[in-house]
């Protein structure tokens, strides 16, 4: 079994952070703030967060804030819940949540809750349980969960529960590991996991492990390193992670590394990116790979960051 090339991955992330003008960076400009979260959290898990200039990052993040209180993916971009969460998560990493005008941000997030408890991603009304997770996680991190109707939010998420125990984006939508993570994470944060049939969902999730050891996102699909996060964190939250072969998954993730240039890809020998590098490293942390900081499966931030927020 190979080893985790931690130094190489840290170097890769720092390199990507600096490159802003190539095609890859330009195509991803609209979600740069998500990319920053993936990159910085990976660095923290690898114990290398000090390599980044905190002040520069924070000042750029704040420049992404819109007058409505929400954050856009980059400076001048329209606000959306997805980017607002990343902004809050990054500030949490640096222990600088107080930089925010908490009332303003929480009002923006709360304004996007609909009567049925669901959340729209922004003022244009797309509804998806991903946004329920984002809203709940954001508000919990800034200690303002009371600004939304938690009971209705939970009710809506539960209405998206399917007959295979999984969850989809909207009621009736097919179960998908990404959506499952969002719903399970939101239910975990709101203390509502009793709505989950842990055995049924646990079995569906553990059957995501393919012969290669990697995990797919739903039946009859190819394995992908990002599911090492979506599926794995869900399994850990519902305490069914022992139902997969952890060693085989570790091996799969390590096989997806580019050990020469750094970075992790979706599948062995594919092109690397920051997204999969984060999910690969975070997945290894969840699998208790030695030398990595522990990550919290529900908030997707290092455990020491979460303890700092909730245990004081």
């Amino acid at each position, binding site marked *: 079994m190979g080893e985790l090339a931690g130094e190489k991955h840290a170097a890769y992330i720092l390199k990507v952070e600096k490159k802003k003008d190539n095609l890859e960076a330009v195509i991803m400009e609209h979600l740069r703030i998500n990319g920053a979260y993936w990159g910085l959290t990976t660095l923290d898990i690898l114990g290398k967060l000090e390599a980044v200039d905190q002040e520069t990052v924070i000042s750029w993040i704040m420049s992404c804030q819109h007058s409505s209180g929400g954050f856009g993916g980059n400076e001048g971009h329209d606000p959306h819940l997805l980017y607002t969460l990343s902004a809050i998560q990054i500030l949490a990493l640096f222990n600088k949540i107080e930089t925010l005008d908490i009332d303003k941000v929480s009002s923006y997030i709360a304004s996007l809750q609909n009567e049925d408890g669901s959340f729209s991603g922004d003022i244009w009304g797309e509804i998806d349980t991903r946004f329920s997770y984002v809203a709940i996680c954001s508000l919990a991190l800034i200690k303002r969960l009371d600004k939304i109707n938690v009971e209705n939010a939970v009710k809506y998420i539960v209405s998206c529960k*399917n007959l295979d125990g999984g969850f989809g984006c909207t009621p009736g939508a097919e179960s998908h590991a990404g959506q499952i993570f969002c719903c399970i994470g939101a239910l975990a*944060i709101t203390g509502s996991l009793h709505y989950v049939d842990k055995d049924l969902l*646990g079995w569906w999730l553990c059957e995501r492990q393919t012969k290669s050891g990697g995990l797919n996102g*739903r*039946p009859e699909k190819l394995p992908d390193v990002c599911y090492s996060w979506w599926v794995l964190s869900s399994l850990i939250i519902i305490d069914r992670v022992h*139902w997969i072969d952890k060693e085989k998954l570790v091996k799969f993730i390590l096989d997806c590394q580019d050990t020469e240039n750094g970075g992790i890809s979706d599948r062995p020998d594919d092109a690397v990116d920051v997204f999969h590098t984060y999910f690969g490293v975070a997945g290894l942390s969840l699998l208790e790979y030695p030398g990595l900081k522990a990550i919290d499966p529900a908030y997707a931030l290092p455990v020491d960051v979460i303890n700092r927020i909730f245990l004081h």
Partner: protein
Amino acid sequence: MHGRPRKPSTPVDENASSLKANKIKSLQSQFLHYHHNKIYTEEALKINEKLIEANPEFMTAWNYRKLAFQDKVQALIDEELRVVENALRKNFKSYGAWHHRKWVVSKGNTSTEREIGLLNKFQQLDTRNFHAWNYRRSIAELKNIPDEKELKYTTDMIETNFSNYSAWHNRSVLLSHLMEKKVEGYLQKEIILKEEYEFVRNAVFTDPDDQSGWFYHLWLLDQTVKLDMPTLVSSWPPHGSDINQVTFPIILYFDEPVEGVSSHTVTVQTENDIFKNVTWNPLSTNKFKCAQAWMTHLSIPHEEVNSSKKVQVKVSSEMSDGIISLCGVTSSRPWSFGFTVSVCQNPQPAEGQNRRLSYADESFCIVDTNSNSAGLLTSYFESKTSDYEQSTSSKWKSEMIATEIDQYRDMLTWAESKKIGKLTLARLLTAYDAVMSTGAPDTANVEEVLQLYTELMKLDPAHNQYYKDEYSLALLKQVTSNKESLLKYCWQYKESTSSNITDSLCLRLNNLSLSRIGSFERLLWVQSLDLSHNELHSIEGLEALQLLSCLNLSHNKLSSFMALDPLRFLKSSLQVLDISYNEIGAHTIDTRRYLCSSPMSHTLDYDAKFEEFANGDANLVNFWDAYSIFGGLNLTQLDIVGNVAVDERFALFLAKLLPGLKWLDGEELN
């Protein structure tokens, strides 16, 4: 025409009038030409506007403007739809593109055929595109396409290619709706299930390795087995028993988590109405007041304590819409159970524990089946056949499952890949036993189930632990199925350490390779439990055992203090606890964290007193979990050695936290 004075017209007037008339006539004829030819250009609209200004009562002119408006909107909509189609061709999984289409369609004026046509095209290219399926669902709702029609679509898709999980999923959603809404033709569950079992069998038998059918089959089985409403399956004290405590709990154990148990929905009756203000508490960590097990603590009031009189107690729930399952189904069948309480006039004062309790084999002897504690066990099993409302297992359920069992046994004889066949057979046999249970032991097939899981552990080693957990649950079902088998695991303490502890039986389930525990509804009578030398990493469910005073969990795989969270609910009874030789502190990830009470899940407030208690000690600062859990317990005896997290300092921390502690890790404390 109103309000015009009568006066002769002058030539000037007549001229002006005739000019105006010609102008309007010209506008009118141009307008009508545009209108009849559906011409809505800017120029045409300007003509119309002039006409309307001259004669706002000309309805046709306003109609034309509406048509022009609709035409513009249609053009805008068509343009947006075209842009979306182009984008989807590049990336048919783009959330933004699909949402924009949905938004545009909601503005009105789109053709159902066009949208369905587009969807059919995309769904043929990729049958698993969930964006397309979701969009299809929203169009069906918007355009009122009936569920039956969409169900037919899933039938077609599945018949084209069985390996279509998305189609199976949608089928399950549509069928559930049709059955729920009691649509004509979907009223008889048995008929639908029979057809569906046959339909899915084709898929599974054609390609046993394809997962799509398996999950659907599991859903059908669940639909077959599940009870029509939440049901009380067990209680403490058992019906018809006699207990002799002044203070005792009443435990209600349901087949699934419920809300709404209260003094309004459940009554506790006695002759002289001696119990006032009965409050029921859910035995669970969430803030939503729902749980599978509920309890109340009752005390016989001093004035009623009388040696010759037995207090008769009846606990009942009449038909009420109070007790509800998580999916909103009401428990509307009445149930009741009764027991007597006899308390001697001068009850012996509760003795403190005077010796350290040991679980070594030598401490035990065979059970005297005539003793009091054995008597309780007997009455527990006898009551199971009487008053609880057992679901009347309909004949069709057992017959349907029996048919499936035959089919899957047959499949195992010819299929190359055995995994799904064996797993399904194990589940079917378990389901058959559950459905046949009417008080008689429901473990007729358990030996075969155990055998199948053993084979599966070897056949599919990646999922070894899943099969092990199922094996453990089946084993416990077997052990607890009747009095005789349970008595094999019951032992009596030879020597007395204190009357209440050593009078009770000890249920010794050690060394059974249990990776998981269950069957709690049959263990509510347990006061002393030995689960040592197993492979448990969770004790979820133990909170229902409200009589538990001694618990041995040594030599297991508990990997955090959080895993002990269920013990919070046992604070009034638990005295002796052994968690030595586990893995507490050996792991960086805690899999019990969100299933137990903590500030992260907003189910427990952070207690700031902890910091004072830890006194700035850097090592102890990490033990908030331990503080939170042990802080509430009243232990007299505790064993914790053999856990990475535990060292001298931590042991002292615990001793400070547990003032009543007399023995720690075998040493007597002063």
